[in-house]
């Protein structure tokens, strides 16, 4: 049941409970101290009287005279009862009560005894009085004088009753008040939560730019607000990527599909000779292959966007992979009279196939844009905490504004250019970057005085093993460069 309560109710309840316990304890303590204080007061009072009577006994050897003296001295004391006996014979008594037998044998140093007689509440003590040897005194040694005296404590009892009632009323009222205060405190203390809730309510798929107010909430909650903001940031990024992705798909697929459809329908509209049909079908097949490849490239990107786990981890010698890819591109390079060269060496840990694909995309890109009769150099460098592979080619300089966008999917420097089928769909560099991010590395490009240089950075194999880097974390690594 307590789980279902609101936080405010729960805090109020606990606060009330704590204050009730504290107040109750305080009340009991006050009542008890007062009670003890009264006992002390009464005891002092009784002892005073014992001393007074002792003095009178000492001064007055004559017992009859003593009785009348005692009567004079003590009659004015309301609520004081005295009995002076010797060996059971009453020498003086105020009367009105009988002293209980428990009093016999006690002394003045004992705690006073409480008892009730009729309606009276009594507190009394008893002690033996010493008797000076009076010269010419009548009897000589005999039974001692015993004094018993008692106070009526009715007024104390009244006071205590009043005090208790007042305390109870006070405790109850104070508890209620503190409960109220507790409720107010909990409510105003939780106000930042309400603020955050209101902000959270505003977040929708189309309004992901809402952020929690970090400065407006207490320090303890600032961290929560920060985490929530980071989460929103990620969600917003991912969502935007997703939106871009679907609009990219729609846009990039629409043109080839409508081409195919038109071509096929026009071909079907009248009878043609088999050779024409064959041509049309072959052209359709080529276009469809391009589409299929684009779709599978996009799927690859969509998967890597979510920070994929590498399918394999093995030691890969970058220079070996580069050389075997040079073999592949050899014919194309010779065709364009380009020289290909690999310099340096370096080993990284990663998925061989994916690394080959990343390098291959860069090489293909370099071959496409290199001026004829120039050189393409692949430089592999290995430092302590990272390795890199750079591909440098001589070609038309790339606009500085376009450089960072080269790795975006479907980005083409020359928007108007109609691309031959081998050109791919503008996804090659995006795939390269995605592969590098999956490896915890990054891809970058520089272009200076006609020299374009694409670089792949791999983190050291140790570092890579420790942290599985998601694409988002990797994003920050690249942006630092």
């Amino acid at each position, binding site marked *: 049941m307590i789980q279902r309560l609101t936080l405010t109710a729960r805090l109020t309840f606990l606060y009330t409970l704590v204050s009730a316990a504290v107040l109750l304890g305080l009340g009991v303590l006050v009542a008890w101290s007062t009670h003890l204080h009264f006992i002390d007061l009464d005891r002092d009072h009784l002892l005073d009287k014992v001393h007074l009577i002792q003095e009178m006994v000492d001064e007055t050897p004559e017992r009859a005279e003593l009785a009348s003296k005692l009567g004079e001295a003590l009659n004015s004391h309301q609520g004081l009862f005295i009995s002076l006996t010797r060996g059971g014979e009453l020498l003086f008594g105020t009367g009105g009560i009988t002293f209980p037998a428990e009093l016999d044998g006690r002394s003045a140093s004992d705690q006073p005894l409480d008892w009730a007689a009729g309606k009276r509440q009594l507190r009394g003590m008893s002690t033996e009085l010493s008797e000076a040897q009076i010269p010419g005194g009548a009897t000589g040694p005999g039974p001692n004088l015993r004094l018993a005296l008692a106070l009526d404590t009715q007024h104390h009892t009244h006071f205590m009753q009043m005090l208790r009632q007042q305390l109870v009323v006070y405790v109850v009222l104070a508890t209620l008040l503190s409960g109220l205060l507790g409720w107010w405190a909990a409510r105003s203390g939780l106000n930042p939560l309400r603020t955050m809730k209101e902000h959270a309510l505003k977040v929708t798929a189309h309004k992901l730019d809402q952020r929690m107010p970090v400065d407006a909430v207490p320090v303890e909650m600032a961290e929560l607000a920060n985490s929530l903001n980071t989460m929103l940031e990620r969600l917003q990024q991912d969502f935007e990527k997703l939106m871009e992705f679907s609009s990219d798909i729609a846009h990039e697929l629409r043109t080839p599909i409508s081409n195919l459809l038109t071509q096929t329908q026009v071909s079907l509209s009248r009878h043609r000779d088999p050779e024409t049909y064959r041509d049309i079908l072959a052209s359709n097949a080529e276009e469809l*292959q391009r589409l*299929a490849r684009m779709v599978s490239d996009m799927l690859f990107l969509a998967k890597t966007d979510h920070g994929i786990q590498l399918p394999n981890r093995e030691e890969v010698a970058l220079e070996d992979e580069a050389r075997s890819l040079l073999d592949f591109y050899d014919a194309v390079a010779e065709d364009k009279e380009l020289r290909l060269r690999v310099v340096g060496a370096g080993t990284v840990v990663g998925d061989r196939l994916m690394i080959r694909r990343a390098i*291959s995309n860069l090489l293909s890109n370099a071959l496409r844009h290199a001026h004829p009769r120039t050189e393409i150099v692949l430089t592999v460098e290995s430092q302590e905490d990272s390795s890199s592979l750079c591909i440098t080619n001589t070609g038309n300089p790339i606009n500085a504004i376009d450089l960072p966008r080269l790795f975006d999917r479907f980005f083409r420097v020359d928007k108007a250019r109609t691309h031959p089928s*081998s050109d791919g769909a503008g996804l090659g560099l995006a795939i390269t970057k995605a592969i590098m991010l999956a490896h915890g590395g990054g891809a970058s490009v520089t272009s200076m005085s006609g020299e374009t240089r694409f670089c792949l950075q791999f983190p050291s194999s140790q570092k890579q093993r420790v942290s599985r880097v998601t694409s988002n974390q990797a994003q920050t690594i690249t942006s630092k460069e």
Partner: protein
Amino acid sequence: MKILIVEDERKTGEYLCMGLREAGYAVELLNNGVDGLHQAMEGDHDLVVLDVMLPGMDGWQVLKRLRAQGREMPVLFLTAKDHVDDRVKGLELGADDYLVKPFSFSELLARVRTILRRGRSGIEPTTLQVADLELDLLRRRVTRAGKRIDLTAKEFGLLELLMRRKGEVLPRSLIASQVWDVNFDSDTNVIEVAMRRLRVKVDDGFECRLLQTVRGMGYVLEVPEHS
């Protein structure tokens, strides 16, 4: 050679059926897992082409049951899922190959031929011959009409692949994978250039052109019909 296709997508199934029949195979087509399993248990197929997502019983289960019953015929998986896990799962269960949709028919045909050829090759020939073109595998020498042709190592590998599979249309992706070990979608232009260069060396100056491009499909090495 008998091939069993289990594929629930009607159009895909029919085209596969037609293509494989025209390639000279006896083909049977079924559209659900339960019938597929039954037929595979009863029949004497040399190969099963199995879709993963099937009504009734999925491809994994069909394969598992088949293997549990001791049926060891090769199985080629077709799937729209491009997950590494799926690939591993399929191969662990005993599939022989794996194709991700959308695939090209020439790719499928090439794989089917590779699987069916497995285990049948007796003595490896040391020379391959198509018309007057001769390839000596031991001395790594190529001659045409008695005239020596100089080839680079990769050109030799490319010609060897084409000659070993003469008459078969080889898709570019298969050529890239077999000759250069490039097992991913790459610049298809590269294969075109390599083929063009090989063609210059092999076919230039000869009446009969052996290396042919099949538009939209790939390349084939054969003696042309009308020459």
